[in-house]
């Protein structure tokens, strides 16, 4: 158990709980035909969350002696894949599904393990092409296919 994470998380959860309580105060306290309004449920939940996060902070404070185990984490490939996923998502609608998916898969394959780039090329091209064809032509779904300046 990472004590630092728990402390940070308890503060974050406390903030969320309090914000929900404040937010629900602004809602109407009754609705038509009922004295029970849309504000009660979120208010109570916000209160419960705040109380629980205080309890979590207390638990994390008490368990200070436990040190977290250190593992070797592969940050580099993770960051690359995370960033390429973000770029993929943001460019999907303008550049279109086929090209972005192909590039995304190829980059990720090679990030995971840098070998057999021909196989990677074939699989990424095959996946993006087949999915697009099946979804748009067979299932008649909507997917931005090609760059918007093409069509």
């Amino acid at each position, binding site marked *: 158990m990472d004590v630092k994470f728990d402390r940070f998380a308890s503060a974050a959860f406390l903030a969320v709980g309090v914000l929900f309580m404040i937010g629900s105060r602004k809602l109407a306290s009754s609705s038509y035909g009922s004295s*029970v309004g849309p504000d009660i449920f979120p208010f109570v939940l916000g209160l419960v*969350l705040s109380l629980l996060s205080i309890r979590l902070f207390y638990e994390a404070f008490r368990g200070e002696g436990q040190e977290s185990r250190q593992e070797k984490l592969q940050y580099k490939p993770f960051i690359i894949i995370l960033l390429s996923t973000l770029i993929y998502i943001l460019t999907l609608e303008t550049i279109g599904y086929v090209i972005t998916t192909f590039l*995304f898969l190829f980059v990720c394959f090679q990030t995971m393990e840098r070998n057999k780039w021909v196989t990677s090329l074939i699989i990424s091209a095959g996946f993006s092409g087949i999915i697009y064809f099946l979804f748009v032509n067979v299932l*008649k779904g909507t997917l931005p296919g090609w760059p918007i300046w093409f069509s």
Partner: protein
Amino acid sequence: MGTFDYLMHGFETALTWYNILFAFVGVLIGTAVGVLPGIGPMSGVALLIPVTASITGGLPPEQAATSAIILLAGVYYGAMYGGSTTSILLNTPGESSSVVTTLDGYQMAKKGRAGSALSISAIGSFVGGIVTLIAMIALAQPLSTIAIKFGPAEYFSLMLLGLAAVSGLAGKSVTKALIMTVCGLLIGTIGIDNVSGIARFTFDIPWLYQGVEFLTIAVGLFALGEVFKTILEKDEDDGEIAKINNLIPSKEEFKESAGPIARGSILGFFVGILPGAGATLASFFSYLMEKRISKKPGRFGTGAIAGVAGPETANNAASGGAMIPLLTLGIPGSGTTAILMGALMMYNVQPGPLLFEDHPQVAWGLIASMFIGNLMLLILNLPLVKVFAKIIETPKKYLIPIIIAISIFGVYAVQVSTYDLLLLLGCGVLGYFLSKNDYPIAPLVLGLVLGPMIENNMRRALTISDGDYSLFFTRPLSLTFLIVTALWLLIPVLLKKRGKDVVINIEG
């Protein structure tokens, strides 16, 4: 119409060509999901919801719901079959409900008896699946008749019980599990309020008006979270796969495993019905029970076939048993059933006592298809187990990016919004860090699915009583549920204080 007629109608539905195909694809993918370490049944089902939604898009709504749930349920119980394969051959469980199978299964494989271990676990899974199905058919009607008499107050208390049961057993810390549950409930309040029509916590962003989509959260937290975990915690040392030679178990092995299979079916079924318990606990209990009543308990851990047959039967029986509260009461008892419920609600099919009346095609079609699916799994797993064992060798290099691509495609195909994709990615990162620090994710998804229903029932009950909260404590059934809820949360805490080890559910 009696139960039998309904069941026959169910078979009619399940035996149409496309539903057979859906069941087949479901169990096939399920087995693969079970075999592959890294994708559990939860992320498998979550990942496939959008895919099935786009495939069934052309069918009329009720049929689409039936076909989709047949496929998704197939993934769920198919994973229970597949999970044993890696436990036995590689000593790495494909999913958490097969952890105990490694104890004796891998030892058997080392002694060259992998074939018998695999076939006994397939047969056990089949028997467990069929026994729970029969029990389910017997219980479905009576349970729905009782549940239909529940008022909003009873429903509110029962749902609280369901949430408490799952939070009380999930993960190492009850506090963390409860925090996740409340977060799920809070996320569920975002959007336009059903009763008053007021927008809550939307900050005038149109994208939030329809609420935060359950699908995006589930796929992000489970599927992407697990993917990120695999990338970050890469371990290269894959063990050697044991060879499978003789698939047919000897007469002696059959005799030895008959008892454990019978006991495992019944035990698994009852553990499965209990909310919060699920397949992992069922397999643990079964192993402990077999060890206790065995005449030679010393043989357990060295390759006793009873230690494979019992748990493997129990986990499959439990996965069937967990469907009962979902279908009859509308209350999912585990993360995976919560996702199945979310899938049904996407098709406007509300699980619960009215399901059998309003949508007999969906309910009985699903039950009948589970018979067919279990039969398919038995056939698939006996002769083709060698083919499935090959799936383990799928290089992570290709698997991981393709899972990301499928989740992005799936969410975009259903939601058609970049905001949902960003939320998906955010949930993936969050899911990794939360589960790494022992914050269980299943309660959050459960809260998200149940939240709006809990609130509606609470407000309906309070409207009837004119704002009087004592209603929940004066109605006997509602009071009972609330007392059980309180006990469920308090007893583990008290036991822990007294220094006892509490069995926890690691299913997620």
